[in-house]
């Protein structure tokens, strides 16, 4: 398994760091672990080939989840979509698109539990 050497090239390409919204340093270990645009340029920048994505997710699971994440998870569990659209199929019909079916609540409950 490739290991982080602390060179911080990941941090150098991070838009959140560039805008002053996250602490510099290896991105998967940083304090503001959720200040991330999810662009994963850090993965491309790492000379060691560290799986920064998986490492970041591991760190996130040890931290308190932000309210925005909590809300999105509730939405996914309740409706199947992170950012629900009201009257989705009516909107689709207006644009001449065929309707979609979202998973039933009971199915979502099973799919989203560990």
């Amino acid at each position, binding site marked *: 398994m490739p290991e982080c050497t602390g060179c911080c090239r990941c941090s150098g390409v991070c838009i*959140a760091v560039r805008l002053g919204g996250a602490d510099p340093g290896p991105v998967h270990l940083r304090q503001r672990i959720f200040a991330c645009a999810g662009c994963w340029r850090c993965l491309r920048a790492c000379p060691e080939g560290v799986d920064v994505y998986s490492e970041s997710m591991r760190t996130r699971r040890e931290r308190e989840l932000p309210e925005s994440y909590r809300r999105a998870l509730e939405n996914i569990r309740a409706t199947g979509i992170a950012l629900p659209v009201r009257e989705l199929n009516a909107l689709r019909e207006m644009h001449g698109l065929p309707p979609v079916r979202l998973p039933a609540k009971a199915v979502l409950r099973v799919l989203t539990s560990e």
Partner: protein
Amino acid sequence: MLTHFPEYELSARRVLSALGFEVGEPGSFACCSSVFLPSVSDAWLNLAAYTLAQARGYEGIVTLCGTCTAMLRRGVVALRDEATRRRVNGVLSSAGLSYTSEPRVVHLLELLDERAEQLSEMVVRPRKLRVAVQNPCNLRIPGLTEMREDALRRVVTAAGAEVVEIEDECCGSALVLESQELAEAAGRRRLEQAEAAGAEGVVVACGNCAYLLERQLGGRVLFFSQLVAEALGLEVGVHA
């Protein structure tokens, strides 16, 4: 499919049909769960498998969002492991589904890039616009989604538009989950770069980019498939 931008899906469907693809009904699908479920558990794989299992009978799934593409491909890779597949199929059985074969997961941009030459021959109404392009970051993840660096530029150029140079940066849309201010600062930076380069608009290939740059910041944004559809003379209610 994307839930928030019907105009994107509509133009995508029209362009695919014009290229000779048979596009199926979307059936049922689950949100890819983006960074949300992976931040708390491995249950994201159940959602990916649910959507992948819907592709049975088709050659593949065409995605319109960078994150969905990356998440579904992560799913395909994880489901190659037999023990994982058995466990996930146990979960899927509650929905009457099973994951038995590996569908191709391809973003529409990758598909059109493969056919950029064919596209340029089909153009009947070149879109004479000067635009900047916002590359979908999640299509360039090493070992997972290795889109050609200049794919968006090639497709947009094939549609007759002129692409102006701006820095290759993330739009910052998902930063909104941490801070609205941060996301807006990132997005404004992109719009300013585009304007300074003389662009009349920004062409995107991901709903997240459009959400920030157009819906939240009021920038002039076009999905690449809208540009292509118009260049091919297809009616899709382009709002440029």
